[in-house]
């Protein structure tokens, strides 16, 4: 394998999010799309008779699978082999990419069509395969736009949520050397015609997977465009790369999961295509893969499995928590600086890749709880974000100054005398700065607070004084 070094990005969350909030076009694109998707979700969930109980059941099924993951993984792998597929376990991204390149070289595959998968983004699979000299094309329209723009997805389900049609039209015009046309239909058809030739001539198809059915050894993958079906149809070789946490025990569990997944993701009762597969084509069949390979990847998931955060592995990547998150809606996906953005990304990214490099993420939440309310598998995201903030403090990952300030604050707050003195000083200082009942500017250290809002002048008596005067 050709060694590839991915650029080490020095990521600064506060400047990235500040830039994003002052980008009007971005805010409009993300704001409109998330609003529409969460409204559609709300309307579709109402068509379930027992939405609440169904979410509980879905969460219980995923939790049960995680609690017995060794048992189900063995059962699943055995069944895939019975169906004629090859199963590999990869510890991390490097191992998974190495396996992928080995399969490509042994099967003499050059032209690769790849459908959308978050786990492949996680390990930068397409870039690594391209660097190894393979012709890899992303075939989901959104992912195709990302690929030719050398960009990164900013949403789990709708990857180009951050781009408006003018930007996409400009990109296509430059890439295909055609006149500018910003009609969505024309743009989609241009991509269709280009990708159709890729489908027709592909050697190898790559997919992710939404669910792995242990009892039968099949994968369940959902999509709307049909590009994933192309991966399952034309190429000689099919490779699926899936996280080990995607297991469900039984085929019947899919009826629970599928009733929730598309509703939560895009507000559809069902995706256009739901694909079930798990091996090579049968004897006599003219299409479908001659070989099927399945790579099950850990890449930090067992760390989470063994921790108090196990239930976060229930996630089915619907993106509902992104669409309702007041923070995501304002800053978009790229500001998080992680493959998985939004509330769930703020949670699983530090858990999978270490808290040290991602300690900004658990702070990127107002803890309003909207994410928990919409989660189809009931992951208590706010609770876990608070626990991660606790971990940051426990491991002294926050700066020395912050720790010193809080220690000083705690010491002062424990003393009634100091508390009263500070309150009085504060009252006096704020009163001195007030103009017509409002404080409009605080001194430098706290100026950020008053840059965008005013503070009302505190009442003339402190609570302690009023309590003494019997209110």
């Amino acid at each position, binding site marked *: 394998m050709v060694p590839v070094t991915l650029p080490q990005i020095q990521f600064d969350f506060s400047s990235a999010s500040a830039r994003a909030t002052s980008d009007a076009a971005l805010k409009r694109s993300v704001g*409109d*799309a998330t609003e529409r*998707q969460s409204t559609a979700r709300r309307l579709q969930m109402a068509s379930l008779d027992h939405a609440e109980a169904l979410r509980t*059941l879905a969460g219980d*099924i995923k939790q049960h699978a995680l609690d*017995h*993951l*060794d*048992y189900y993984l*063995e059962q699943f792998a055995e069944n895939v082999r019975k169906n004629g597929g*090859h*199963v*590999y*376990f*990869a*510890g991390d991204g490097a191992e998974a990419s190495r*396996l992928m390149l*080995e*399969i490509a070289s042994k099967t003499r595959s050059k032209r690769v069509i790849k459908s959308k998968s978050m786990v492949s983004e996680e390990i930068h699979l397409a870039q690594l395969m391209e660097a190894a000299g393979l012709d890899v094309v992303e075939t989901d*329209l*959104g992912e195709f736009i990302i690929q030719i723009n050398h960009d990164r997805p900013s949403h789990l389900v*709708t*990857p180009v949520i951050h781009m408006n049609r003018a930007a996409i039209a400009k990109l296509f015009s430059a890439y295909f050397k055609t006149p500018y046309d910003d009609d*969505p*239909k024309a*743009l*989609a058809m241009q*991509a*269709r015609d280009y990708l159709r030739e890729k489908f027709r001539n592909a050697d190898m198809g790559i997919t992710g997977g939404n669910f792995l059915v242990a009892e039968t050894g099949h994968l369940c993958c959902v999509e709307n*465009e*049909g590009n994933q*079906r*192309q991966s399952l*149809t*034309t190429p000689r070789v099919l490779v699926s790369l899936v996280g080990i946490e995607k297991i469900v025990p*039984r*085929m*019947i*569990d899919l*009826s629970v999961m599928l*009733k929730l997944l598309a509703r939560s993701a895009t507000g559809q*009762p*069902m*995706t*256009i*295509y*739901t*694909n*079930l*597969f798990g091996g090579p*084509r049968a004897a*006599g*069949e*003219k*299409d*479908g893969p001659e070989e099927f*390979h399945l790579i*099950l990847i*850990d890449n930090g998931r067992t760390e989470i*499995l063994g921790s108090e955060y196990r239930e976060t592995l229930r996630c089915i990547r619907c993106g509902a928590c992104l669409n309702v998150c007041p923070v995501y809606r304002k800053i978009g996906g790229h500001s998080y600086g992680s493959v998985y953005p939004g509330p769930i990304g703020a949670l699983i990214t530090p858990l999978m890749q270490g808290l040290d490099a991602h300690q900004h993420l658990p702070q990127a939440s107002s803890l309003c709880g909207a994410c928990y309310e919409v989660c189809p598998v009931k992951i208590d995201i706010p609770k876990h974000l608070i626990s991660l903030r606790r971990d940051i403090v426990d491991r002294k990952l926050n700066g020395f100054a912050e720790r010193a300030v809080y220690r000083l604050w705690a010491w002062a707050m424990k003393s009634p005398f100091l508390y009263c003195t500070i309150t009085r000083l504060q009252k006096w200082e704020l009163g001195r700065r007030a103009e017509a009942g409002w404080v409009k500017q605080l001194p430098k250290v706290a100026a950020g607070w008053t840059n965008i809002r005013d503070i009302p002048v505190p009442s003339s008596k402190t609570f302690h004084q009023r309590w003494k005067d019997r209110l």
Partner: protein
Amino acid sequence: MHPSNETMRTSDPDSVLDRVRRALGRTKTPRTIPAPPLIDERVVRLVHTDLGLGELFARRAGEMNMRVTSCYVEECVPKLIESFVEMRIKRVMLSESSLLRKLEILPQLRSAGFDAKTWDEITLDESYDFDASVTDAWRAVAETGSLVLRASPGHGRAMSLVPVVHVAIVEPRNFVADLLDLFELIAREGVGSATTLISGPSKTADIEMNVVTGVHGPNVVNAFVLQ
């Protein structure tokens, strides 16, 4: 191709399965585990009756922009030909199926002047040059308005994917009420080499949430439901 890590019970202490066991606090995978959560029908089932499944299917499929043509057996092929003429279809591929043979679709299409071939007469690559396909359906789900197709030697995966127009002939006995019934059935009867649920024409909403149909799969999916 069998790399060394394909062995399941490996002694490598850092294999993924070993890490999973360690994370669960054990060194060996248990032989038996508690039963998975009970699937409570009262919670999961959305369609409670087997009456009117055809009407429900038509409504739900229609909501997903699938065309549904309800017809008696004798009017099926004339209606099919009419719609193909309207859409200026010239080349049609047909799946190998007793239902399609019984309806005599192939000879009737040919005598109406269409270039019609069965799946076994063409190569996968040639299928890209066809305008339309006609297949049967393994099942159809009323709850979601979905066609359920199963790949077989006579019914290629490309048939419902590659042409711009896909017609599926659905018999009344093909209907199941709820996804719950479908997956119970699949658990019993198997997936085959691949099974696909189709709930409308291929679509994308990636560009500013504008829905565009026919992006990689068919732009028109028409279910002919026999009375």
